[in-house]
């Protein structure tokens, strides 16, 4: 008895998943599947077991190998695009391997030369998850290289967008930021150092030479700060002026300009030291905040369109010979040869072969279709089964899918949405200008020599920099926290969209329910042992996912014992074993008439006309979904699904009473659903996973794509959420709301400082020392508030079902 329980808890030595078969295979190590086992054997053969010493269970679960997947790399034209260098003998290539995640991956990939002699060197760029290889073309081809990497669990991800001719958009440059911060920080620190003598009592009258020297050095050090470090503030301010509104960079640009000009004036006239110290400090802190906020995760892409989902090339049969053709060059009437797990690139007609086609990612239908010869099949479906031949009906550009992308929602540019920060900064700037001018007028009337002094001092000290710092640091810390917990935001503005939403729309297949497994319930099982063996052996011959699910449920790994089997696509299987007629399949096929129950996913088994077994498939909910939906009581909810309504009752029980449900929705209809909600004045969050949600995700105020792993494909969205973290969504939303409140606290703190500073400035008593003390202390104070605040916000929620840190 004890042995049984320990056996069930075995996890795969390679990837850590639970082992259902293949237990205790080699050297007392168990594996969950043949894939993991093969990787272990390969590494063992080449004495690379160190892979397992560096980390526990470092591998990723192996998918079934598709032998033809990298066939297109044999084509010179395509290979030439990917190779960085080639001289006929040696070649260099860089692959993107999204599975890289730990030091074991690093170790293994840099020891590839031990696996194959054709590999000369290999180097990993961990942050970008890239592997750069130098290999000998005479010993290994590019295709074999890709296949080798796949065999050890690191399948290269090559998408259409990589080999496209269109230039890549300018991405966030880490180097540029490093330069800016380095130079600005250098200048700031030195200016501060050189300003100290005057703060500490150096009298200009006594040592004019020295004072002048210090001031001029400061001035020259401030030049890089103003013209290089602060460049982006000026650029953004000008941009907003041209668009006709004021964003937060405008008052900052103004403050920097005034400070700089006044300092130049004072230094050239010899009347003072200027305020270069505070100015460079502010620029440095703001750049720091911006960097923290804008850190992007270069391995994630929030702008994927349908092109990255499709393969690059496909096998075309021309006069019986196989040819690899780029997907854009596929024409009508071509005959395509597609294998297991391949994706249909175009709409076509099935002409040969037997396969189930999984459309769940495209339309949301959870049950695969089994087309017969002559049926239409659509682009985007995944083939499950043996190889099939398709006659192309429409070109790639005209398939039923690209139409969705022509919708207006995709054309809208990402503009500076009116955020809380921009409105507050607008009012702040107006206030400051008002105060400055009134101070100017006052002094002009009473003691004119102080007028300009007061005006410029107010503009210097009342810096909205503190406002900017509050938002950038608070957002930056929160974005970082989310990213560490599987929730990746495209940029910091998304936080505000999340905080002010009041309606959440969910997709069903793949989001609320698991995309792959359904749970099986055997409601009737009166088979004898031999009958059960026979049924399972018949089912093991089928490629239908339901058949596979049943055989997996009973851990059946036996062999075929009979060949009198007939499979009818869409209906079921029938077989004659030992003179008995077995029929396994749908209700209609097996002759069972259901009593008014709607489309349920079920399989009946009849032997000689008598029903002996019945299996009911219920879609497995993702972990934590019922709790998730309960916690979202502050929002109105709805569910839009592309699937049929067979699970309507199950869903009704999960959602609150006032939730809306829509089934069998096309991608276009999902988009319209969101539009309708927005017209009612609601701010909508859409949670979806597939290409069929792409339109809705774009249209919503904040679109969250749920993915299995952070490297899986996700349609264009504002945030990517790892599937196992979906249950923490209410906690994340609460944190986003709390962070907005935190920003308001930071604002009040900085307003306080501003009042004090303006007090000094208006009375024309603002000395550089006072400014130098006020500015950094307010900045540092804000950074501290942001940091401590976010820590508090994310920890308080930890007590109530937040992700373990």
């Amino acid at each position: 008895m004890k042995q049984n329980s320990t056996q069930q808890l075995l996890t795969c030595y390679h990837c850590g998943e639970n082992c259902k078969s293949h237990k205790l295979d080699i050297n007392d190590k168990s594996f969950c599947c043949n894939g993991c086992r093969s990787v272990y054997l390969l590494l063992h053969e080449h004495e690379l077991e160190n892979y397992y010493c560096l980390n526990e269970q470092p591998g990723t679960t192996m998918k079934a190998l598709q032998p033809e997947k990298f066939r297109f790399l044999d084509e010179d034209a395509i290979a030439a695009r990917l190779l960085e260098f080639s001289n006929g003998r040696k070649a260099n290539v860089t692959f993107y391997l999204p599975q890289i995640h730990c030091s074991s991956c690093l170790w293994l990939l840099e020891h590839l030369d031990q696996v194959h002699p054709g590999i000369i060197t290999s180097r990993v760029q961990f942050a970008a998850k890239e592997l750069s290889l130098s290999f000998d073309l005479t010993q290994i081809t590019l295709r074999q290289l890709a296949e080798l990497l796949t065999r050890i669990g690191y399948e290269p991800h090559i998408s259409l967008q990589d080999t496209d001719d269109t230039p890549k958009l300018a991405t966030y440059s880490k180097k540029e930021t490093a330069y800016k911060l380095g130079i600005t920080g250098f200048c700031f620190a030195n200016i501060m150092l050189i300003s100290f003598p005057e703060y500490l009592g150096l009298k200009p009258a006594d040592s004019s030479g020295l004072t002048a020297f210090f001031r001029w050095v400061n001035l020259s050090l401030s030049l890089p700060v103003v013209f290089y470090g602060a460049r982006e503030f000026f650029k953004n301010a000008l941009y907003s002026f041209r668009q006709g509104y004021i964003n937060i960079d405008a008052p900052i640009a103004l403050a920097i300009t005034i400070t700089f000009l006044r300092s130049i004036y004072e230094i050239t006239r010899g009347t003072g030291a200027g305020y270069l110290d505070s100015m460079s400090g502010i620029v440095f802190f703001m750049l720091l905040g911006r960097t923290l906020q804008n850190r992007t995760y270069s391995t994630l892409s929030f702008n994927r369109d349908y092109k990255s989902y499709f393969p690059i090339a496909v096998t075309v049969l021309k006069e019986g010979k196989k040819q690899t053709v780029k997907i854009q060059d596929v024409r009508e009437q071509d005959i395509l040869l597609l294998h297991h797990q391949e994706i249909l690139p175009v709409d076509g007609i099935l002409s040969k072969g037997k396969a189930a086609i999984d459309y769940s990612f495209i339309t949301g239908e959870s049950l695969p279709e089994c087309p017969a010869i002559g049926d239409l099949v659509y682009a985007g479906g995944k083939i499950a089964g043996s190889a099939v031949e398709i006659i192309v009906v429409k070109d790639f550009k005209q398939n039923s899918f690209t139409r969705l992308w022509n919708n207006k929602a995709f054309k809208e540019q990402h503009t500076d949405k009116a955020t809380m920060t921009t409105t507050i900064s607008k009012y702040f700037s107006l206030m400051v200008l008002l105060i400055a001018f009134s101070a100017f007028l006052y002094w002009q009337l009473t003691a004119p020599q102080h007028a300009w002094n007061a005006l410029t001092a107010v503009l210097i000290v009342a810096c909205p920099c503190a406002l900017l710092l509050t938002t950038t640091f608070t957002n930056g810390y929160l974005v970082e926290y989310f990213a560490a917990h599987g929730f990746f935001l495209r940029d910091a503005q998304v936080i505000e969209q999340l905080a002010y939403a009041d309606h959440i729309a969910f997709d069903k297949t793949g989001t609320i329910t698991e995309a792959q497994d359904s749970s099986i319930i055997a409601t009737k099982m009166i088979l004898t042992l031999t009958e059960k063996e026979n049924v399972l052996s018949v089912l093991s011959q089928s490629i239908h996912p339901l058949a596979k699910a049943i055989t997996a449920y009973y851990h059946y790994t036996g062999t075929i014992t009979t060949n009198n089997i007939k499979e009818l696509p869409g209906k079921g299987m029938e077989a004659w074993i030992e003179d008995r007629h077995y029929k396994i399949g749908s209700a209609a096929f097996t002759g069972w008439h259901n009593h008014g129950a709607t489309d349920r996913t079920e399989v009946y088994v009849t032997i000689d006309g008598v029903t002996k077994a019945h299996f009911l498939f219920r879609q497995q909910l993702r972990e934590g979904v019922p709790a998730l939906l309960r916690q979202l009581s502050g929002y109105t909810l709805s569910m839009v699904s592309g699937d049929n309504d067979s699970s309507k009752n199950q869903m009704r029980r999960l959602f609150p009473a006032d939730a809306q449900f829509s089934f069998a929705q096309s991608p276009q209809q999902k988009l319209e659903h969101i539009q309708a909600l927005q017209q009612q004045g609601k701010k909508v969050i859409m949670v979806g996973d597939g290409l069929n949600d792409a339109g809705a995700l774009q249209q919503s105020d904040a679109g969250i794509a749920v993915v299995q792993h952070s490297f899986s494909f996700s349609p264009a969205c504002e945030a990517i959420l790892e599937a196992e973290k979906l249950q923490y969504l209410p906690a994340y939303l609460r944190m986003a709301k709390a962070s907005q409140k935190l920003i308001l606290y930071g604002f009040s703190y900085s307003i306080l400082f501003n009042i004090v500073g303006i007090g000094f400035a208006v009375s024309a008593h603002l000395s550089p020392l006072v400014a130098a003390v006020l500015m950094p202390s307010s900045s540092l104070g804000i950074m501290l508030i942001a940091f401590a605040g976010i820590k508090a916000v994310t920890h308080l929620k930890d007590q109530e079902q937040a992700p373990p840190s």
Partner: protein
Amino acid sequence: MIVTIFLLSVSLIVALIFLGAYLWSVKSGQFDDDYSPAHRIFFDDNLERSKNQKTR
């Protein structure tokens, strides 16, 4: 007084040299990958491999 000016200038020049070194290291890509170099030093098979190569 001259001494102070001289000292300050020299220290600024030295500091500029270090800034230059920093900019050079960023340009050459040293900071692009902050994960791998830290872990690479723990791989102790460099010794094993050179041993193997000698015995081969």
